């Protein structure tokens, strides 16, 4: 998409209206693969979802299933050697095909990212003030210094960091404060969409809960759309509107958190929830085996070798994405469409026994 060059300051003021009903982010058949000597690791393999303004989508799944790759792919922050395909539209504009310059303009100002370990993203030699000045100047170079400080202090204040700490260095902050600092940095340009990749994993229990609450308020206060990557289904339950369950590079089920968690349709979702240890756990459950090698995943449904409901059809034919009863999408032969299952396809699948040898 071509765009007239706008004065950066004006550009900031004349942002498109966000309050429409259209999705902020719309991903279609997104694929990301890493080239290796053994072949291509298909880390994200045909993922589609929409994110509405002010909505939080939780992305869960076992480690290695492609969550971080998807998050970075949406931002255009993939490492060298990674390739991607498909379509990611930000308010209708295709971000995967735009020029690097436009993509850079979009990142930071419209798309933000929060990482697990804030210290690796903060420069220990720079004061907090310098971090903010740099972030703002990059996108709005003509903003007067007073304005810059003002915006930075506002963002910090929202995160509960007092103005007295504006001239401090990152190491003078506690872990939770650093993470709030990172969120403030991501928010200072008021992006419409933020990817947060395991933002609380490195934090203490109480601080984790505080940050979850902050993320929760974010969508209400600013209509920021958030993709929250986590392995903690408890956090999804508490902070997300919708959930996408990822397995071996695919989103196998997505829908409203209340629907999906109350009546999971996909066997993987069900097993993942059952294996989570919570305060109400009275017995231990687990999924045998481990996720497949993404260079050479099993044919048909990738969960078939571990699935307690696997049928003959599952081992040969990719399941089809269908409307989820209760809303959302799911891809699993056990849910449907039954009329496409060939004769004899519903017979129980003979699975190899899974020992610890196959285990994660």
């Amino acid at each position: 998409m071509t765009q007239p060059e706008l004065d950066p300051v004006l550009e900031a003021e004349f942002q498109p209206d966000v309050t429409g009903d259209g999705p902020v982010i719309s991903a279609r058949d997104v694929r990301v693969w890493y080239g290796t000597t053994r072949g291509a690791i298909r880390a994200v393999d045909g993922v589609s979802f929409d994110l509405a303004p002010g909505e939080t989508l939780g992305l869960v799944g076992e480690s290695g299933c492609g969550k971080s790759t998807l998050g970075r792919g949406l931002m255009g922050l993939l490492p060298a050697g990674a390739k991607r395909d498909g379509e990611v539209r930000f308010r209708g504009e295709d971000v995967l095909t735009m020029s690097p310059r436009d993509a850079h303009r979009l990142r930071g100002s419209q798309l933000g990212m929060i990482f697990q370990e804030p210290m690796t993203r903060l420069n220990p030699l720079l004061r907090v003030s310098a971090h903010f000045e740099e972030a703002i100047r990059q996108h709005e170079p003509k903003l007067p210094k007073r304005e810059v400080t003002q915006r930075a202090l506002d963002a910090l204040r929202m995160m509960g960091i007092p103005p007295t700490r504006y001239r401090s260095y990152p190491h003078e902050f506690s872990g939770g404060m650093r993470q709030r600092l990172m969120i403030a940095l991501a928010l200072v340009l008021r992006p419409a969409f933020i990817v947060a990749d395991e933002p609380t994993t490195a934090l203490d229990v109480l601080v984790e809960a505080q940050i979850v609450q902050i993320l929760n308020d974010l969508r209400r206060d600013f209509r920021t759309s958030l993709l929250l990557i986590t392995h903690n289904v408890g956090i999804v339950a508490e902070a997300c509107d919708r959930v996408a369950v990822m397995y071996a590079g695919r989103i196998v089920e997505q829908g409203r958190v209340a629907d999906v968690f109350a009546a999971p349709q996909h066997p993987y979702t069900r097993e993942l929830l059952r294996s989570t240890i919570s305060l109400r756990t009275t017995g231990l459950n687990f999924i045998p085996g481990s996720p497949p090698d993404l260079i050479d995943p099993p044919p048909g449904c990738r969960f078939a070798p571990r699935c307690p409901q696997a049928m003959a059809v599952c081992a040969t034919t990719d399941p089809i994405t269908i409307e989820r009863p209760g809303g959302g999408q799911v891809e699993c032969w056990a849910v449907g469409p039954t009329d496409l299952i060939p004769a004899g396809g519903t017979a129980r699948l003979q699975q190899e026994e899974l020992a610890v040898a196959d285990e994660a």
Partner: protein
Amino acid sequence: MPTKPDLIDVRDLSVHFGLRGGTLGRLVGRDAGVVRAVDGISVTLREGEVLGLVGESGSGKSTFGRALLGLAPATSGTIGFDGADLTSMSRSELRALRQSIQMVFQDPSAALNPSMTVAEAVGDALRVHGMKSSVERRERVVEALERVGLSPVQLFLDKYPRDLSGGQKQRVVLARAIVMGPRVLVADEPISMLDMSVRAKILQLMLDLKQDLGLSYVYITHDLASAKFFCDRIAIMYLGRIVEIGDTEEIFANPRHPYTKALLRAAPDPDPARAVAKDLPRGEVPDAAVPPLGCSFHPRCPEAVAQCGWEARDLRTLLETHWTRRTPEEYDAESAAVGSLDALARPDTSVHVGRGGADAVRSILDRIRDEEPDEPLWRGVADVTDDGAGVRVDFHPGVDPALRRAGGVDVACVLYPDDSPDDSAGG
């Protein structure tokens, strides 16, 4: 329930670390201080029991666990095991002790030597402890690997850590821990680095090992959910102290210490229907080198009262938090009247604040008080008097609450005065 005999009896254990190299000392405005990583802990581990140590970072859980193996030097106190005091043992006695007490660490990758095969890693301890016959060693290694579910064993014996998944590595670590036939396993966050779906598997394995080998565990974690499922008794720790200890059921049914209640509220619940808005304590675990006065939890405690240890640093936090809610203009004016907060950086119970005149400073404090009448800090303020260009704030002296009996558990909090001593009528 018949009480099992005590296996480990820890009495008043302290482990203090000196802050060498004055940098940190200078930073915190103190000469060469100490970190009281473990600060007067008494606890017993009974035969066949799982004792949980639960708390946030820096509460001293790992240091305590390491002290049980003689890996962290006790500053004072005793650790009784089998009638001997572990804190006064020689190196060789400690080495012999490792046949009986073993440790499992959080990060299985860091715990395993990358250049040793599984067979070597598990057999090494046997060799160190003088088992000369390699055939015999091999037998014991195979047996241990089978016990931890790494079968067929032949598939694993010659593998290196890099060939194993996280869960498999933790199984190897467990095999190495049990190969000597220990009676106690100190497990420091054994599942927290593992993927969600693997945690239950390793926890199940630990349960099986306990059953099959008659082990007792000290289970260290910050995760209340796994502790609730796994432990018979739980000690909640904060900044080097046990603040509440009792049977798991009672701790969860009737949490008493405000910190225990806070941890319970914070635990995420995967049932969206139950996930309610939470009233969380503010702030974070403070620097252990300069802990809060009185009760260490007081800066975060929603129930704190006058004698909980209020001091200058709390006033600083109050002002700073207040300023996150003010407009920039108000902040500029108020901070000019208050002046530098450096005077509020030390643990003083009487402090001068302000440079813009007593009235100006007093009105700022009054304003905060009007806005936040329920702020516990006000309960700790004894007096505010005019003092030069500002005011002097005097706080009530704090008390450092000791662990006391309260309804079947022990709690260290002024809200729970002792309910048991010499009271034969009590039960």
